[in-house]
């Protein structure tokens, strides 16, 4: 979808041999207006992989209940465990992939994608809930492993000024795949009644194509967009007070990033900028309702017909898909941290809509889903882009993993707290508490993030306070 304007600007993101093969590239002109092919390739890999994985997710309950006669409720119990494992594995994936000055990103990502691909034929062979659970656990491990290195590669390939849009394009392609997956699965089941084996086999083939695209078209070592400074490898430079520098300045140091590849999480958090960003992600995550809670609240407060329930996530995903790219571009213009905060204000508005007493059904549902989708579009890829600004590139994978794991953990805590408040005082109070908490967290985050220079400063800092 973004192929149209890729001829207009510079990128050294692809392997050197690539450069002449891409027509119309003029290095050095109008930085930030085009997307490097690596981002598009990684987006394609995610799109393909999500088609594959969502095909399986969509038919799994039916397969278990109608074909195997099992009840999938056991998975609900294990889901929390899987998610916890996935978050921890993500830290490991980020850490491993940073070895060798970032040349491990591709290797770890390939392992992660391949692991998930291998799970699809395994699903064909196992016929009991325990083994299916084990296969899904391996699948989650693959997902946990690949996420941080993949985002690191996107951030390294994109020019600093276009990172928001790069992540936006990636997330949009990812979501498009997620929306296509169930459709493909149901088309297959239509062609072959009870053809679950066909669904799993096709899912496997699609996943392998994803891995092959990754292997063939993503350069082993993504160079930064800042004209090949990194090509010399991870030059070790003494640690400086980079934390207080504006993000753009950190970017300019390119390969001379101060933290070495063996920097542990603690040293990463020793950098003021990373600490503030992680702090804000955690703080805001603590007041971010899980999707299921949001849909449940929506459904109960408006007394929606049960048949609507499966459609609610589709609404959010559609808005996310539509807005991810434009909002990513907006983030590049007005600053990622600012848009990240604005996204949470959209979420705050969604909470507000939920609190409006006896409001009209369909309009409120559409409003909440639009705001929820906008929230994702303004925060998901944007946070990754903002993190990339703050983390030196030879620990990029670890840095992304730390911030994202912190956010995930905080959201998990939020789920527990929200459920507890709902139980004790009812859903009105719970949503109100989340809204008040989010407003406070946003206010604190606005202060914390303002101290850091917001690249490129098109707006004056005073405007940010509004």
């Amino acid at each position, binding site marked *: 979808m973004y192929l149209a304007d890729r001829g207009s600007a510079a990128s050294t993101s692809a392997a050197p*041999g690539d450069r002449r*093969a891409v027509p119309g590239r003029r290095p050095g002109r109008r930085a930030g207006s085009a997307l490097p092919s690596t981002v598009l390739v990684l987006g394609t890999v995610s799109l393909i992989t999500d088609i594959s994985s*969502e095909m399986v*997710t*969509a038919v*799994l*309950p*039916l397969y278990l*209940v*109608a074909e*195997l*006669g099992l*009840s*999938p*409720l*056991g*998975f*609900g119990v*294990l889901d929390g465990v899987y*998610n916890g494992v996935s978050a921890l594995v993500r830290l490991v994936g980020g850490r491993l992939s940073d070895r060798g000055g970032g040349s491990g990103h591709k290797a770890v990502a390939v392992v992660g994608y391949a692991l998930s691909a291998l799970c699809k034929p395994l699903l064909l062979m196992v016929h*009991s*809930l*325990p083994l299916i659970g084990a296969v*899904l656990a391996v699948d989650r491990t693959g997902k946990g492993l690949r996420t941080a290195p993949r985002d690191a590669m996107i951030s390294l390939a994109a020019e600093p000024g276009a990172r928001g849009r790069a992540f936006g394009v990636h997330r949009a392609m990812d979501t498009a795949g997620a929306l296509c*997956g*169930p*459709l493909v699965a*149901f088309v297959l*089941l*239509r*062609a*072959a*009644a*009870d*053809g679950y*084996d*066909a669904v799993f*086999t*096709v899912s496997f*083939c699609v996943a392998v194509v994803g891995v*092959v*695209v990754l292997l*063939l*078209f993503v350069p082993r070592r993504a160079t930064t967009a800042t004209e090949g400074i990194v090509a010399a490898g991870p030059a070790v430079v003494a640690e400086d007070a980079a934390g207080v520098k504006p993000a753009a300045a950190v970017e300019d140091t390119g390969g001379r990033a101060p933290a070495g590849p063996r920097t542990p999480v603690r040293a990463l958090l020793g950098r003021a900028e990373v600490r503030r960003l992680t702090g804000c992600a955690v703080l805001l995550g603590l007041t971010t309702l899980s*999707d*299921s*809670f949001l*849909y*449940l609240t929506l459904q109960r407060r408006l007394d929606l*017909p*049960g*048949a609507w*329930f*499966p459609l609610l*996530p589709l609404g959010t*995903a559609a808005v996310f898909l539509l807005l991810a790219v434009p909002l990513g571009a907006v983030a590049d213009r007005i600053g990622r941290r600012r848009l990240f905060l604005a996204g949470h204000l959209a979420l705050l508005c969604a909470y507000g809509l939920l609190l409006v007493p006896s409001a009209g059904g369909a309009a409120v549902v559409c409003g909440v889903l639009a705001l929820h989708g906008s929230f994702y579009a303004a925060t998901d890829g944007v946070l990754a882009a903002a993190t990339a600004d703050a983390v030196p590139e030879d620990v990029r994978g670890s840095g992304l993993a730390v911030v994202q794991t912190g956010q995930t953990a905080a959201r998990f805590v939020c789920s527990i707290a*929200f*459920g507890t408040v*709902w*139980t004790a005082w009812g859903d009105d109070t719970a949503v109100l508490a989340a809204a008040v908490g989010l407003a406070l967290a946003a206010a604190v985050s606005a202060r914390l993030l303002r101290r850091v220079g917001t690249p490129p400063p098109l707006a004056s800092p005073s405007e940010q306070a509004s």
Partner: protein
Amino acid sequence: MSRTARLLVLLATVLVLGGVAVGATLHAAGRAAQKDRSQAGGPAVAPGSVRLDDPRHTLFRNMAWGPHRDEITAVPAGRLSGPRTASGVRCLRFHEASGTGICLRAVHGKLRDTYRAVLLDRRLRELRHYDVAGTPTRARVSPGGHTVAWTVFVSGDSYAGTAFSTRTSLLDTRTWRLDANLETYALTVDGHPVHAVDINIWGVTFADDNRFYATAATGGKTYLVRGDRAARTLTALHTNVECPSLSPDGTRIAYKKRVNVADPDAPWRLYVLDLHTLHETATGEHRNVDDQAVWRDDRTLVYSLPGDFGSDLWTVPADGTGTPRRLVTAALAPAFPR
């Protein structure tokens, strides 16, 4: 590798994998067609007239390949492996009592399947139907035939991952009053009201048209609850009980109990609970049972386990003696008209 070479490799991969994908789909489509033909050595299935209120026959969903796969079929009560009479009514889940039948079925839509709960009269004609929000899993009719319960799994689409929740509905077949979600009933655990959001209720089994038992889960624990439809209450009686099934004499509950085993994914064993003493008895079935058992009579349990055609029915004595025995192959969701 040059860009051309890489594109060629990709093209070759896509062609090979595309071939595999198309092959697998054609194979499955062919097998689906084959499933419409009876397999050699399988049970004889012939279309015919099926009634829900004939105590000389046992009913179940026929899983055997052939044109009547997934249809509710009747077999002689004394010889379950005998010839099957197919009703033409296809159901994923089924139960009946006193001539009232409940059939949970898939409705094939253009983009995706939806599900429907269908009420059947004694001649399996549709009385009413209700759209349901997810994959059907449990269905029960009260002994008098006037109250019906069903449970579906609800899973949000892409963003809910593997998290499932249940939704259980109760229907009065005399007034057609529908309680769409049992979670709106007042739940009491240890004398305290519980309003948690994470409540899931499933697996209803009826004592009469008003009183029933079910599983309620909240806070990571499962409870056996006694329900009262008129009072709209659920009262917890015991913990660690899933998918209860009340014996015909109303004194015992067969259920799946979560036990500590080496494999935490396969924790369910078939137990029987005495409702007076709350004494639990393990049955002779030591495999993982993920089903709501059915009482064939006051002494015998029937339940499903995965089999060559998706599911077989097994039986074991309820008093903890004996060993499990395969009752019938290629069958699911049995009902024993009395």
